[in-house]
């Protein structure tokens, strides 16, 4: 029994049609376009939920194992007899889960934007871009073919580019969007080459066949892939690592993370949707998609994933402690949490109990989508109220925006991993997996968890406490918290942040598709929870009331603080490499070489010809006498020639 193809196909197609409609006729629709977009998104989300229900409870499980189901496959572009790009739809636990996450968060953001973006001149354009993004993201998660993933990967990148640069008259937004696109594009180069390597080794691009052919030791494809090596590393490892580079670019892993903080220039709902909940986890999704190959054929690559993940996680957490722009704090926290997901995959095994990390990673992806979207939307409503992103402009808002306050607190507790909020459960799984596999990663993960609690509550206290409540008659605080459309998503997401942790995730999403029990050991949880509480307490000490402590601390750790505040100078390094090295050492010489040497050579040929012509032309001076001289000299010359030399 197969799930309903049309139903599934409609999930991405509805946003696409909405994109076309709004893109072409948006101006005429005006404010109605938002409603239209939201309505179509709701339908799409409904279908996604229906599909998830069908898949998880009816058709997906055969013999106790969740199946990979290709419900649709079309030869889109044939390359060689074996290799083709197909457009298809693949259902398996992670893609179904992602369908739900994407459509749900997207729906929330659509609703929220009705209020947040109200009065915006390009309101309909905004909605059409949102629809385009949703379409691309859905296409990405449904891909049945590695190359199809790449196609939608690029589309996701461009819609992210368009949305970051939505306020296109702001130069900072334009440069942030360019940065995001180019950095991820650079990563995509790795992805593309990885696809070429894997695809040509396995002689297919279909996920099913690809994984099938590359995980069995006796498979000839795998043997050639391992046998052929480049620079001492096998082709398979290269391919997987390069694909991971692509994933790392999208998921803002160190050192390709630089675009993410800048991407916060986009409208806040966009940050919530793209740069917190959905697109940035695409890298995790990609690794999870190819997880069998990683774990069964190439554990080395998986170790790289783990270490990059844990490093990014710690690195981002340190930076997040020092940032003052609230959206940037959230961006670094996103990076840190994605690092969590990555290293969770890295420490995971494949079958049974060993697959805890995989499950935890996916679980964390799921819960993180909820509370991080909530955090961003909450931050959005704060920004909507204050008209500033800077912490120093905020403080004491708890009375002025009670709903935002409460929901934001819930989200902070969730991300800090305090039971019984959602983040607690997923984090436990991840830390447990790390504990079994690799103690170093485990301890670093613990530290990161504590820091997460600290910086999140630093954020929370700075926004809602710290200063006395602003007086009611304050100049620009003219309106309340925001319209109902903005509050509703906050409610729903807060509800989710509290409740989704109780979903028995192991029943649905595991590496091998089989049941895995979510087990909790209260003894194990003591360490992380108490560390998190310690972090919260520290933050309370520092930031609940305005005091001198943070400044003193900053001074006493000046070097570390300054470098963390400047994001460890990664941006400067990039700037140096791109602006100085690439532009000056490659671009400029190439342009110069072209104009001077190559074109100069052409001009030289032309110049020589015309110069020669000029010379000959000089003889035709119109001066009769010089003709006569030449004539006479010629006669003499011939005379000598004929008389003496002949």
């Amino acid at each position, binding site marked *: 029994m197969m799930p309903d193809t049309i139903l599934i196909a409609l999930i991405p197609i509805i946003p696409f049609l909405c994109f076309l409609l709004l893109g072409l006729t948006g101006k005429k629709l005006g404010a109605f376009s938002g409603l239209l977009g939201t309505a179509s998104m709701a339908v799409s989300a409904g279908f996604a939920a229906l599909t998830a229900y069908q898949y998880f409870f009816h058709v997906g499980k055969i013999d106790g194992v969740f199946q990979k189901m290709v419900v649709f496959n079309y030869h889109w572009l044939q390359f060689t007899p074996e290799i083709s790009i197909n457009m298809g739809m693949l259902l398996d636990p992670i893609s179904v889960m992602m369908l739900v996450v994407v459509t749900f968060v997207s729906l929330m953001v659509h609703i929220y934007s009705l209020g947040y973006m109200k009065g915006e001149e390009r309101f309909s354009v905004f909605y059409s871009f949102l629809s385009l993004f949703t379409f691309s993201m859905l296409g990405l998660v449904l891909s049945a073919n590695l190359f199809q993933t790449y196609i939608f990967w690029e589309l996701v990148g461009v819609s992210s580019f368009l949305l970051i640069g939505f306020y*296109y008259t702001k130069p900072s937004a334009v440069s942030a969007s360019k940065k995001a696109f180019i950095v991820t594009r650079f990563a995509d180069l790795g992805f593309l080459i990885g696809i070429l390597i894997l695809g040509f080794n396995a002689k297919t691009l279909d996920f099913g066949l690809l994984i099938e052919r590359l995980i069995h030791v006796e498979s000839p494809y795998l043997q050639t892939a391992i046998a052929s090596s480049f620079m001492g590393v096998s082709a398979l490892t290269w391919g997987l690592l390069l694909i991971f580079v692509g994933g790392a670019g999208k998921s803002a892993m160190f050192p390709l993370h630089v675009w993410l903080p800048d991407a916060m220039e986009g409208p806040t709902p966009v940050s919530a949707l793209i740069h917190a909940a959905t697109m940035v986890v695409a890298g995790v999704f990609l690794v999870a998609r190819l997880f069998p190959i990683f774990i069964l054929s190439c554990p080395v690559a998986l170790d790289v994933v783990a270490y990059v993940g844990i490093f990014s996680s710690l690195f981002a957490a340190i930076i997040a402690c020092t940032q003052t722009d609230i959206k940037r704090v959230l961006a670094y926290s996103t990076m840190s949490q994605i690092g969590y997901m990555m290293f969770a995959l890295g420490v995971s095994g494949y079958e049974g109990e060993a697959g805890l990390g995989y499950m935890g990673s996916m679980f964390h992806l799921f819960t993180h989508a909820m509370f991080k979207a909530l955090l961003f939307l909450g931050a959005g409503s704060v920004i909507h109220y204050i008209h500033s992103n800077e912490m120093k402009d905020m403080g004491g808002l708890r009375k002025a925006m009670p709903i935002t306050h409460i929901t934001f607190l819930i989200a902070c507790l969730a991300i800090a991993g305090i039971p019984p909020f959602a983040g607690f459960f997923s984090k436990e799984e991840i830390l447990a997996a790390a504990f079994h596999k690799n103690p170093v990663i485990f301890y670093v993960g613990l530290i990161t968890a504590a820091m997460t609690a600290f910086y999140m509550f630093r954020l929370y206290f700075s926004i809602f406490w710290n200063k006395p409540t602003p007086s009611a008659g304050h100049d620009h605080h003219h309106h309340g918290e925001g319209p109902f459309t903005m509050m509703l998503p906050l409610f729903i997401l807060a509800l989710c942040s509290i409740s989704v942790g109780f979903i028995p995730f192991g029943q649905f999403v595991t590496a091998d598709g089989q049941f895995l029990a979510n087990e909790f050991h209260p003894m194990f949880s003591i360490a992380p929870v108490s560390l998190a509480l310690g972090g919260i307490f520290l933050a309370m000490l520092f930031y609940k009331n305005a005091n001198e402590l943070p400044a003193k601390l900053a001074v006493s750790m000046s070097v570390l603080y300054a470098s963390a505040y400047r994001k460890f100078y990664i941006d400067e390094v990039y700037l140096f490499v791109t602006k100085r090295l690439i532009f000056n050492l*490659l671009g400029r010489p190439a*342009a110069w070489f072209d104009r001077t040497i190559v*074109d100069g050579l052409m001009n030289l040929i*032309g110049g020589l010809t015309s110069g020669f012509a000029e010379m000959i032309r000089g003889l035709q001076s119109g001066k009769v006498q010089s003709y006569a001289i030449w004539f006479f000299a010629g006669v003499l010359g011939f005379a000598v020639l004929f008389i003496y030399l002949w």
Partner: protein
Amino acid sequence: MNLTLLLLVPLSTALGIILLRDVKHIRLMAAIGSICQLGLAIKLLLAYQTARLLGDTSQMLFQFKYAWYPSLGIQWHFGVDGISIAMILLTAIVVVAGILFSWKMSFQGKEFFLLLVLLSMGAYGFFISLDLFSLFFFLELAVIPKYLLIAIWGSGKKEYSATKLALMLMGGSALVLVGFLGMYEYAGKTFDMLQLAQAHLPLEVQKLLFPFVFMGFGVFTAIFPFHTWAPDGHSSAPTAASMFLAGISMKLGGYGALRMAVYLMPEAAQYYSPLIIILASIAILYGAFATMMQKDLKYINAYSSVSHCGFVILGIGMLTRTSVTGAVLQMFSHGLMTALFFAAIGMLYERSHTRQIGELGGLMKTMPFISCVMFIAGLCSLGLPGFSGFVAEMTVFMGSWENADTFHRVATIIACASIVVTAVYILRALGASLLGPIKNEHFNHLADATWNEKIASALLIVSIMALGFAPFWLNNLITPDATLIIHALGK
């Protein structure tokens, strides 16, 4: 389907233009003629596919032969296969768009449209010719009007550019002619392509003649280091001429190199393949880096054309079925995309009177339509899925990767790397000219596109998307003929 019709329509259009006096009638005549031609091209495509479906397996369809100079073995010999049909379709689309974009041309409009029509006639004749002599004749017919178009209706240092372009292209066609005459001699006094393909020239002869023919056509495709006509020529040419130049005449080169060099001299093609690949890789990356530093929008697009045409050369040089298919796809895609890009630049220039990206800025606000067109062209150029550029580039990459040795792999990776550089320069250009705050007060009063520009842009965009969303129709059209060419290699 009578192929001579493809020549008669432009010819009668040209005659009509000569007879008419009013510019309004003339441009109407040109538009009608070109639209008829587009209709013919589509009909040809359908007729071709029908014939193939009915099981016609001959290499060239709709052949027509007429002895022109029997004593020298020169004849009119027409015939088409999938590759030429793709090119004819491309030409027809670009011509319609080009004529619509030059709707406002009032200065010596009669001569202008006449030259455009003649140029297109040259291109059609080139693509349907199976006789090397008549092919050369049409090649020249497509070159000469360009000189006049640039020198008379151009801008900037137009005489210099026009002369440079004409001389370099003439030089290229002179090389081609040498190669043709060589083949004619060695293959027993025939110019007929099909007979030449059967003639199996000796390897030494092929090695001697291949560089002439390939580099000669290479000049047309702006192969490194003979690409310098492109930036100057494009930047000086009027919009329609730029479109024709990039959309059509660079394709003459690619088609010629594939048909006349690789197909007729397969062993030499294999022998020279590494050299071609090196040149193409240089052109791709070097063109891309050179583009990064350009400040004039037309220069940016011209250099990016050098880079993109590098993919065509690379695809041809890699000599696999997929890569050759990719090369043809890239020709098709690049033709449409660059035409669109030049059209957008032309529209901007017409209104703002500058093409320097430093002087432009924030045009998205005042000219949303034109800016969108330019954005689409840019995104297509950087190989975004959904547009034709992606399909073509990926096919080239895939085909190149099939050659499983380090040299070819490295070349492929170099070519792949250009997608990043392309993104850098395209976004730089688009960002600086369209986004950001409005730099110049008077940009606030600029008008958006007119109806003719909208129709023409829409035509090009729809064609680009048609290939981007559904590449299989063109792919299926080209692949059998690409296979044939590769079979000639003995692979």
